[in-house]
């Protein structure tokens, strides 16, 4: 009997959990005028560890979830996330992609790209873009710090869930615990 492949679902649900927790955090720190964005972390695991098909499925689903909650043209995150996914997938065989530190570096770089790309798209709407950039860099600093703190846990969470499901993230073959 053919075994169902839950890898894309595991990564999508983990991403959804992280996005929900980030939303909760942002809700509570709204009064401080600080915002945390962890988009880069949502792409890193799927792009580095999963096979291309499961990875793309997880990234597309995650991007659609993110897009539905943000006031950006629907498809903006889909484009940015899949672009990052494609770039990481293209070069991942050259790097030690199994390591958490490398995944963290990828997440940080991806987040930097996402924040800057979104800012270029959206900051023009404001009355004074120059002062908005100061806030964006402050938020980016806090977001990168949050990735450094949360990233190892989040990557380990996905690794352990794959272990519990007795499935190898890349090959999809059953593995003994």
């Amino acid at each position: 009997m053919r075994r169902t492949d839950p890898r894309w679902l595991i990564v999508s649900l983990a991403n959804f959990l992280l996005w929900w927790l980030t939303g909760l955090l942002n809700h509570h720190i709204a009064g401080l005028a600080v915002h945390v964005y962890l988009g880069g972390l949502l792409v890193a695991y799927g792009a580095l560890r999963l096979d291309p098909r499961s990875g793309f499925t997880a990234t597309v689903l995650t991007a659609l979830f993110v897009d539905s909650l943000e006031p950006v043209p629907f498809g903006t995150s889909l484009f940015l996330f899949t672009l990052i996914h494609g770039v990481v997938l293209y070069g991942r065989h050259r790097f030690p992609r199994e390591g958490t530190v490398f995944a963290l570096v990828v997440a940080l770089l991806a987040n930097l790209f996402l924040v800057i790309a979104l800012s270029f798209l959206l900051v023009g709407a404001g009355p004074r873009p120059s002062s908005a950039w100061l806030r964006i860099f402050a938020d980016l600093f806090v977001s990168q710090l949050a990735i450094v703190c949360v990233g190892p846990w989040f990557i380990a969470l996905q690794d352990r869930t794959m272990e519990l499901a007795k499935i190898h993230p890349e090959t999809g073959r059953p593995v003994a615990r």
Partner: protein
Amino acid sequence: MFPKRLDHARPFVTLSVILLAWIFLPLGAKVFTRASFFEIQAPLVVADSFVRDLQDFWSNKTRSKEELLKAGREVAGLVAQYEYATQQNAQLQAEILRLENMLNLPPMPAFRLEPARVARRDFSAWWQRLIIRKGENYNLTVGAPVVFAGGVVGRITEVHRYTAVVDLVTSPTLRLAATVEGDTRPVSYQGGLNSSFSAPRGTVDFVPLDIAATASAPKRLVTSGMGVFPPGLTIGEITSLELSPDGLFRNGEVRLDRRLGTLTEVTVLIPLNPDE
């Protein structure tokens, strides 16, 4: 199968296929997908606000009887004040109606007040939004004004089945026609100056040259009545004004209410006659 040389380009081919499919997807399908994905997450977004309410409820249950009695006395005082204000309001409404009839003026827009709990605050440099726990189920409409005790909160931009999204007055995407208190000439307000760890601010443009305001002597900025907001609602305080580059008007900054960052309850004004 791809030739080995092109095998590494496969991610970009997949990306191109996804993007092309997305571009050619009909608009209706995109709208449906967006609404579906939003509604899938909505219960979770709302659930955590219900959990917070439950936490508040249980933490209030631990308060002593003395504290409750004291709070009850304070509430009784407030109720007395509001009852008096309600009577005055009724008299003023009757006076407005009398004047409208006498002068053959069109009636003021009437609203139904719909209080709603805030489920989620999302304040970034790109947007400033709230998700509230009422939507189509309470007949909320897109564009309806949202207010709180301190004045304007914002405007509803999306209405879903059980939730609605409010674009805040602090958001760079929100523009309003306003007036300086005591003046009838309209000025333009826009949100969007939200520095980290400080109170939100907005900007005001097209202020007449004879109006002056400083941080020590600010001027109250209120809604003009043009657009969806009823007149006289507080937006903020103009704290600085300087000559615009063309020299015809003044531009300045508006200090907004700090409480906008910690709102838990708002009131939606739903027009009774949306066609007016």
